[in-house]
């Protein structure tokens, strides 16, 4: 009984982590599929969203929902502008070159945040909450909001990709950009919309992260390995896979603490990832 309670607690924690990872990983996967390079600066869009919200919420004293809406909108503007300038406009081609550019972008974004907001952990002006307790499950209202928003957005991305014209174009671009172009698709514009979706998901993840935990200029960077792992595990370029990858990673991360000390939990989680990839080298949902 004690073990069941513990397992439930660990699972809930794992799902909470996964919900944050998934939002970032889905965006990363999408951008990898379409733009065809690993955007190292992607997790920093989380940080931009969180700090933009912080500026409205704490700096200007707006209520949190309004600040979050404005913060996400501002992050969208900043993020898309940065992605367009650095990844679409620079006369740089090749995945490796763009990867290096994205590392540079990541440094710039973090250091600008450091310059403006300082290194100290920051918080939204949102009071701490006491949890609702259902047996071993303990969740606060904000955590339930987090799960709902993350679930809702992942579903929205699914609908967008499967049911809309833009979704068809993005999937087509992921398959063959050249074929897309000769079919008369405005690939530049579609790429821009893809960046918007990716940045939006990242910024929302950042705001939710800040709501539950704390803001630091390195907050995105610290998660980079987990986010990339979730993306790879799910199958690079597959948004559904990113969701599945996040869940597998988040839950194994927590479950592993039943058998090994906490400080080694990443080891088992990444071991599980390696094992998955041995049997499905293109990831859980890869292999298109």
């Amino acid at each position: 009984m004690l073990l069941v309670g513990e397992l439930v607690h660990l699972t809930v924690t794992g799902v909470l982590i996964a919900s944050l990872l998934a939002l970032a990983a889905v965006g990363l996967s999408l951008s990898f599929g379409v733009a065809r390079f690993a955007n190292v600066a992607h997790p920093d869009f989380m940080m931009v969203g969180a700090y933009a919200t912080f500026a409205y919420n704490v700096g200007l004293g707006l209520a949190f929902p309004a600040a979050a809406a404005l913060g996400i909108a501002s992050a969208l503007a900043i993020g898309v502008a940065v992605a367009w300038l650095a990844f679409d406009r620079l006369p740089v081609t090749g995945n490796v070159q763009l990867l290096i550019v994205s590392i540079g972008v990541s440094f710039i974004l973090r250091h600008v945040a450091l310059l403006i907001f300082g290194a100290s952990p920051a918080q939204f002006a949102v009071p701490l909450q006491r949890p609702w307790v259902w047996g071993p499950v303990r969740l606060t209202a904000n955590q339930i909001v987090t799960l709902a928003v993350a679930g809702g957005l992942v579903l929205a991305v699914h609908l967008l990709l499967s049911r809309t014209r833009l979704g068809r174009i993005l999937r087509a671009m992921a398959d063959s950009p050249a074929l897309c172009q000769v079919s008369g698709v405005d690939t530049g514009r579609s790429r821009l919309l893809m960046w918007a979706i990716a940045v939006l998901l990242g910024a929302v993840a950042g705001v939710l992260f800040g709501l539950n935990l704390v803001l630091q200029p390195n907050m995105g960077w610290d998660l980079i390995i987990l986010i990339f792992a979730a993306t790879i595990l799910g199958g690079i370029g597959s948004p559904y896979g990113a969701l599945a990858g996040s869940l597998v990673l988040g839950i194994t991360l927590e479950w592993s603490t039943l058998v090994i000390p906490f400080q080694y939990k990443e080891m088992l989680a990444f071991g599980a990832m390696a094992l998955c990839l041995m049997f499905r080298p293109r990831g859980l949902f890869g292999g298109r």
Partner: protein
Amino acid sequence: MTMNRRQILGTAAGAAAAMVGERAWLRAAWAQPGEPLRIGVLTPLTGGGALYGTAMSRTYALLAEEINASTASGGPGIGGKAIQLFVEDTQTNPDAGVRGARKLVDVNKVHAIVGTWSSAVTLAVAPICVQARIPLFCVSSSPAITTFKDDDFLYRTSTSQSFWSGVFFLAAKKLNARTAGIMILNNPYGLGLGDTFAERFTKAGGKVTGRVVYNPNQPSYRSEIQQALGGKPDVILFAGYTPDGIQIFKEWFQLGLGGTWMGPGFAFSPQFIQSIGAQAAEGTVVVEASPRQDSSAYRNVQKLYKGATGQDADVFVSMAYDHLMIASMSVLAARGDVAGEAIKAQIRKVSNPPGKVVGTWAEAAPAIRGGDTVNYEGASGSCDFDEAGDVFTDFGLYRIKAGTWALDQTIAAAEVKSL
């Protein structure tokens, strides 16, 4: 030569007429009066210690400014000698720390280095200082710093971890705790403190109900917290830093599990309390070297730091103040000799008893100039260095009440030493 000195003394031009007599004294007795005291400020401005290192760096600048503007020693600065700071970033990383120290020693030719924070950085930088024959003042707490062969050039204003674990053991005893949980950061400080505490605690008949070693920068600590609190211990020892502490406490409160935490003051800092809110911090036990709130040194650093930043001076800010005060007093006591050996020879004379108790430049400078023996009582503690360059200070056991530390009991240095 005269021109040089005039340039250095330039800031005091207005007061020059009143100081003709003073200058004569300086000219007669001082070695190289014009050469500034060059101090290397080597703190973490980025990385894990950035929070504290930036505050420390700021403090050195504030105190240097105060001393440079003061004429308490008979001339501006240290008897006409300006303090010049050279700032480098250790990035909380030994490699970067060594690069910074080399630059300070080779290019800037500093006379002392102050501010190394992490023990790993201090131990990497110390050999460079010993080789250059200049003092190094640090705030690190690893026991290895006590035994390091430093030719007496390495000083610290924080107590060693081996001392800290005794302090926490006594704190648990004073709280009548029979069971303890421990939640420790996975680094030499966390493991050193957590495990030596556990050893003392179990040897004295206590029981450790849960031990969790956590890695920093996790997306969640919910499971770690649950585990550490699993056996409902009387007290939970937290051996981490402020940034991870904020996140852990936020999640702990939102789990609604209860329990009494105790931890070091540099983790449960005013910024920590402000971040998690007075409600979540209420009742938490803070163990810290009694920051001499009654000392003139503390009052002065609080005035300087709060005036500049609006924030309270924490223990690292206090230590930074103490470093530069001791270095400056030593140079004054050495009659302006800035050579590392000369500074070193004065450090214990100005900071240990006996002597007139001083805490600010305004108090210390005239006394030293007048030939008095002084005993510096610092902002972070009494700053009485033993043969190894270590300090032993009294500690306070505080409880967080309505957002501030309220002193509950004291833990005397003698009590810890007799364990």
